[in-house]
């Protein structure tokens, strides 16, 4: 069997780290090839090399057996390599058709010729079962539809090699199933697919072969049918990992956080981002808010933590009204917040690791004296946390956080927030971008907080996390809580229906 793309012995170094160390990836024509690895394993770097964003320090890329040089994404495109990025690259106020032809417009004397393009798009979407309305505006269609547009973009450019970068992260279970079908369809039509993911179920569902990376090194390429999930995990992590989160029965006590009829205005449009939401988080339980990204979870958290104003409603902490309290006073009252966007909220990237670890405590007497920061104390404290939470960085506490890997940045935030010994921990996607080992660790930490009698509010998009960690699930859809579920009794399918808005029940507050 001939290979359509070969990346042979690719090595790529960055300051202080070898992102790709002698990695070989061979993609057969007409297969779905999964690229599996933890975050920071070097998947993105390898794909960036293939896409011409980075030049490898060593190694060659071959297309159809001929050596090629890919200096930029245009070269990659010319070789028939297309990519669906994790975050779509679409113009929101353009139509589907306009987005598809963007950059490769057919013109006549400078005037657009849309009819030919439309025909081609319709033909393609029929052939591959990618139904979209070419005249719909991107901002009006669902995320799943937007992804189809991205796929059509690649097909429109006659790409032979399709890279999917963690395509399922933004989809509902039902949409994921659809995508799997589409991918198989594409393969059967002769396209070659590279599928980047760290979700084993999906690999088992569609991939033919799988290449595993760990810490920048090539571990092996296996046939998916002959390899079990456990074996794949072990290849990826380097040790055995238990998927189940070990936890005992929860024994919720009195209410810690109470939210009553909370309404938050939306930034765009007149619809409310959070619409009349009420719920309670009690001591000693993990309440999880599930939902597809963009259904008001972020706004809800901003409202709870005081980062954004609310329209109406009430927030009580320990029975005290904190609806109008400042961020600082909420923090001091025992509210910890692991934010969704670690670069925007979680860290001052240009500060050192030590300075970030005291971001919520620098003003306490432990770290300041008469207005001067006690840097010796700061560094001692930072070293303590770095040891406890195994935060890895190039130069220890003095490392500028910008230069740290995403996983370690996240660990720094988690270390800071958990070490505050909060009364209530609001964790928004705390495991996003982390490897399996770190996820395991964080889940344990969340359960430990619960067992210590603290309240935990978890906001997650990962269904496995929702099902395994939480004691109670609230599903959010279009700004409202549409269901309360017991993880022991519900199924992923049922959860998916609630998340997609096609099912709802009355919520007992």
């Amino acid at each position, binding site marked *: 069997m001939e290979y359509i793309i070969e990346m042979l012995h690719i090595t790529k*170094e*960055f*300051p*202080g780290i070898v*992102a790709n160390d002698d990695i070989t990836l061979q993609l057969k024509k007409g297969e779905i090839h999964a690229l599996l690895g933890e975050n920071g394993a070097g998947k993105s*770097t390898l794909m*960036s090399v293939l896409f011409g964003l*980075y030049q490898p320090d060593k190694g060659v890329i071959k297309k159809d057996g001929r050596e090629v040089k890919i200096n930029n994404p245009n070269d990659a495109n010319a070789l028939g390599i297309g990519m669906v990025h994790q975050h779509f690259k679409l113009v929101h106020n353009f139509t589907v058709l306009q987005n598809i032809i963007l950059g490769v417009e057919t013109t006549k004397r400078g005037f657009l010729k849309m009819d030919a393009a439309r025909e081609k798009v319709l033909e393609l979407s029929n052939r591959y079962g990618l139904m979209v309305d070419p005249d719909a505006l991107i901002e009006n269609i669902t995320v799943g539809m937007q992804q189809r547009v991205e796929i059509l973009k690649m097909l429109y450019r006659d790409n032979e090699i399709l890279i999917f970068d963690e395509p399922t992260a933004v989809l509902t279970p039902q949409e994921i199933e659809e995508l799997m079908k589409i991918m198989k369809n594409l393969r059967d039509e002769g396209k070659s697919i590279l599928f980047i993911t760290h979700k084993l179920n999906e690999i088992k569902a569609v991939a033919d072969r799988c290449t595993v990376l760990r810490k920048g090194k090539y571990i092996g390429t296996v046939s998916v049918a002959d390899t079990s999930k456990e074996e794949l995990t072990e290849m990826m992590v380097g040790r055995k990992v238990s998927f189940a989160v070990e936890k005992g029965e929860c024994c919720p006590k009195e209410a810690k956080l109470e939210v009553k009829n909370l309404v938050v205005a939306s930034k765009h449009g007149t619809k409310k981002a959070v619409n009349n939401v009420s719920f309670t988080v009690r001591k000693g339980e993990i309440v999880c808010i599930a939902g597809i990204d963009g259904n008001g979870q972020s706004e809800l958290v901003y409202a709870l*933590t005081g*980062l954004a104003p609310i329209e109406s409603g009430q927030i009580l902490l320990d029975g005290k009204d904190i609806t109008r309290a*400042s*961020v*600082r*006073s*909420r*923090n*001091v009252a025992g509210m910890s*917040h692991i*934010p969704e966007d670690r670069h*925007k*909220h*979680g*860290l*001052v*990237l*240009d*500060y050192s690791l030590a*300075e970030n670890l005291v*971001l*919520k405590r*620098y*003003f306490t007497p432990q770290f*300041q004296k008469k*207005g*001067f*920061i006690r*840097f010796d104390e700061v560094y001692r404290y930072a070293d303590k946390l770095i040891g406890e939470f195994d935060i890895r960085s190039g130069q220890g506490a003095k490392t500028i956080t*910008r*230069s740290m890997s995403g996983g370690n940045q996240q660990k720094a935030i988690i270390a800071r927030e958990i070490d505050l010994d909060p009364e209530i921990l609001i964790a928004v996607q705390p495991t996003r971008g982390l490897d399996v080992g770190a996820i395991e660790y964080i889940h344990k930490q969340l359960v430990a907080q619960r067992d210590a009698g603290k309240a935990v509010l978890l906001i997650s998009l990962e269904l496995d996390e929702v099902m395994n960690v939480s004691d109670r699930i609230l599903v959010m859809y279009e700004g409202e809580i549409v269901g309360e579920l017991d993880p022991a009794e519900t199924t992923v399918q049922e959860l998916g229906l609630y998340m997609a808005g096609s099912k709802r029940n009355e919520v007992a507050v």
Partner: protein
Amino acid sequence: MNRIRNIMVSDGFNRAFSSIFSILVGLLFGFIILLISNPGQAVDGFVIILKGGFSTGAKGMGQVLYFATPLILTGLSVGFAFKTGLFNIGAAGQFIMGAFTAVYIGVKWTFLPAPWHWIVALIGAAVIGGLWALIPGLLKAYLNVHEVISTIMMNYIGMYTANYLVKLTVFDSKKNLSMNTAESAVLPKGGLDYIFFNQLGSTKDMSTVNCGIWIAIAVAIVMYIILNKTVFGYELKACGFNAHASKYAGINAKRNIVLSMVIAGMLAGLGGALLYLSGANGRHIKVVDVLAAEGFNGIPVALLGLSNPIGIIFSAIFISYITQGGNYLQRLDYMPEVIDIIIASIIYFSAFSLVFRTLLPRLFKFLRERRAEKTGAQTAAEAAGVEPESRDVNNEGGGR
């Protein structure tokens, strides 16, 4: 050897070097302008620029420091605001308002005894400068009016207000300048009169430099401590680097914006006072409709000093030095405008230090790799397949 290499790739070295490199490029560009406008005297002219303040001996150097004093303060003003994420383009307005206040107190408040007179004048200038920046600060914090626009407008309001008030209160219509301040309001020499003078027979030709330069340096050091050692500085920089994260951490960003602008304004206002409280030989306020150059030159000073208070001391002295050198060019056959162009282009290129900061590491890396390849080829010829070690040393730049 390795230590030298470590210094070479260190961030601090890279920053300082990029500033120096951009100065060199600016000088080269200035030389080209000299060549174009008057090829015959270009080399002589270039030497004069390089000699800068030294052209006229010790007094010249004194003048360099005298004119560097306000630049340090306006540079600090711009740099301090910049560290907190604000662009204070309004140093010119704050500067001239401070200058007027100082001169007014210096001329009118003669009831104050000697040391207190100039001290009160300095404080008054700082307060008015701070007030001048308070308005853009409040507008930014509470109404989200961009500070670039509001400070630029405050510049013009400040300039015309100062002109009007000078004419109204402390104008010397014979000289068309502001009046001389009382002797008690003139800054003391602070020991500098023993160094910066030229002996002319039995008389000393004194430089106008005074203890203002000491005050400027002291203020720079205080600013350095505030930014790097205090809780206040920690908060201010956090706001500057990432306003979202500082809000998340519970820092009162609005209060910090206002405070930062006020401090920046106080610095610029103080700069105005230090320049104009220098006695009969020193500067006087000219009533012309031109924004104070010291205010705008604070921007390249801050850029060249990379907003570091200590760096700003040196960059201000450099810009003053080169400006003085430019003034002496008039001895040759150069139009004054050409001199301004040259100085402007040097300053302009100085501001390129940020560009060089990203370009230089790449250049170094390229050179290192070239060398590594060469040695690699040699070693490969000698003993096949052994990778030269120099390659592993901290490859700078790259995929960030």
